[in-house]
């Protein structure tokens, strides 16, 4: 059948990189996906299993893109297990993207929430002063540290790794580190992606300190194109109005940080 933007297009995996024991990055060639904006996502068809939303990751090679997937349920586990030569379907890109600010910028990410943030870094200026706080539970779950260092090479920057158990980098939560940083630094913008409770706190801290903040949120996504309603978030749709929202919009949304919907559409607490 004829392909359109919204019809899954089959691509072949041409590289798989282990990031942690449960996180892998899989690479494939695709011109459209190689050019997506930071924060945009694709719907990824794992044939025979499911189709799930995935942030589009960068690749250093032209015309290539990647997904960084954490093993979780059936679809992500199957995706995680894919080998070079295996085929998956992609459609998109969907969603809006982070606004690109300049100056002193703070990126706060947790887990695979780092994907859009790393992509964002490639859109920033060499003259920006970028600080990235990356959080995880423990040392073995840390990834993208060297990727971030490499992208920021030759610029004024700081990559701060935080683990909850202190097994690597600073001990604690990313938001503890952020709390400290905003006391002594004047940031021009904060970007965050990761667990919603974390983002909620990041947005609160930024807003209290009058810093422009944007978060990319996750909701149950079936269509990705503003039809099924499953990603609804207050009176907005995460897939079309988002996934990136600014602090003001987020704090006025009573669902932010508190509730999300299940596959049937029932509201559930975080």
């Amino acid at each position, binding site marked *: 059948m004829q392909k359109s933007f919204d*019809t899954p297009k089959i691509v072949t995996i041409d590289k798989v990189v282990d990031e942690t024991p449960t996180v892998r990055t899989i690479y494939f060639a695709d011109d459209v996906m190689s050019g997506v904006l930071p924060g945009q996502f694709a719907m990824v*068809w794992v044939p025979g*299993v499911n189709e799930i939303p995935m942030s589009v990751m960068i690749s250093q090679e032209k015309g290539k893109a990647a997904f960084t997937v954490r093993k979780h349920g059936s679809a992500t586990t199957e995706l995680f297990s894919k080998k070079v030569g295996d085929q998956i379907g992609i459609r998109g890109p969907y969603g809006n993207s982070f606004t690109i600010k300049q100056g002193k910028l703070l990126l706060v990410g947790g887990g695979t929430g780092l994907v859009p943030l790393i992509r964002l870094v490639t859109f920033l200026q060499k003259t920006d002063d970028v600080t990235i706080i990356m959080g995880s539970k423990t040392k073995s779950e840390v990834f993208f540290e060297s990727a971030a260092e490499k992208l920021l090479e030759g610029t004024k920057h700081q990559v701060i790794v935080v683990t909850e158990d202190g097994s690597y980098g600073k001990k604690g939560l990313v938001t503890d580190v952020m709390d400290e940083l905003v006391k002594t630094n004047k940031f021009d913008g904060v970007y965050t992606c990761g667990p919603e409770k974390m983002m909620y706190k990041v947005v609160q801290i930024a807003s209290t300190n009058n810093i422009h903040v944007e978060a990319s949120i996750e909701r149950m996504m079936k269509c990705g*194109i503003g039809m099924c*309603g499953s990603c*609804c978030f207050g009176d907005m749709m995460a897939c079309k109005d988002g996934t990136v929202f600014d602090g003001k919009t987020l704090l006025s949304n009573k669902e932010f940080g508190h509730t999300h919907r299940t596959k*049937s*559409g029932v509201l559930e607490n975080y």
Partner: protein
Amino acid sequence: MSPDISTHVGPISLERPTMLASGILGISLDVFGRLYKEGAGALVTKSLSKEPWDGYPNPTIIGLKHGYLNAVGLSNPGAPYFAKMLSQNQTVPIIVSLVGSVPEDFTFMVKQFENVKILGYELNLSCPHVEKVGLEVGDDPELVHTIIKSVKKESKVPVLAKVGLGSSDYLETVRTACDSGIDGITAINTLRAMAIDIQTGRPILSHKIGGMSGSPIKPVAVRCVYEISSKFDIPIIGCGGVSSWEDAVEFLLAGSSAVQIGSAVGEKWTGVFSEINDGISKYMEKKNYKKISEMVGIAKKF
């Protein structure tokens, strides 16, 4: 004075002739409120069942060369949950879509909404991709008759029936619905269809067969509205592939008193309602129509 674009679908009055079709974005009162503010004349909920349904695994909705293909599997949080959510509703004109297999399913659900402010019900007799409900009900005249009779008995608000093209004559379903006291007909639902990925050889939807919507089905939907309005004296809501004011006008001329918009909401986003309302209004001004009813069914004159 600009033309009056308010309209009536039998006993249902609408400020504007463009409605949100069932299944599209329809699971949250907040979203209904937003779409109403953005121009929709009424909002039809997702089709609700007695219990919450997760629906099918993805892929459930994909784009085609033209239009869309879906087999969502009627995912919905269930009528009781939904009724609770809607109980906070004051001003938003909501029509509750119901799906089920037997009359008791429907009467159970109607009871849930007893004290909830809604405009009416739309009985989904036409979902083409879920077994034992939808079209499989619509194709059975006996069942259609008893379901409508029992809902009409239970309900204090008007009841619409949504028909589609199944494996029997949809005009017979309409006839049965009319004979059973239905207040209006929504036509049509999606057309049973399929897409196969040629690289993997697989049907793309997890359910394999789904329903096609969007611009490709418009000429079929217009035909159905025209046929129904030619054969029956019943208010009609046109649905299927409306994405511009020209499309909406075509449905009105064919005989429907309002239109529902589904796929085009995804395509053009929430501004689509006011865009179409404005287009209809300008068309009426140019053609010197004062009221929507003056143009309904004009194509039948020829």
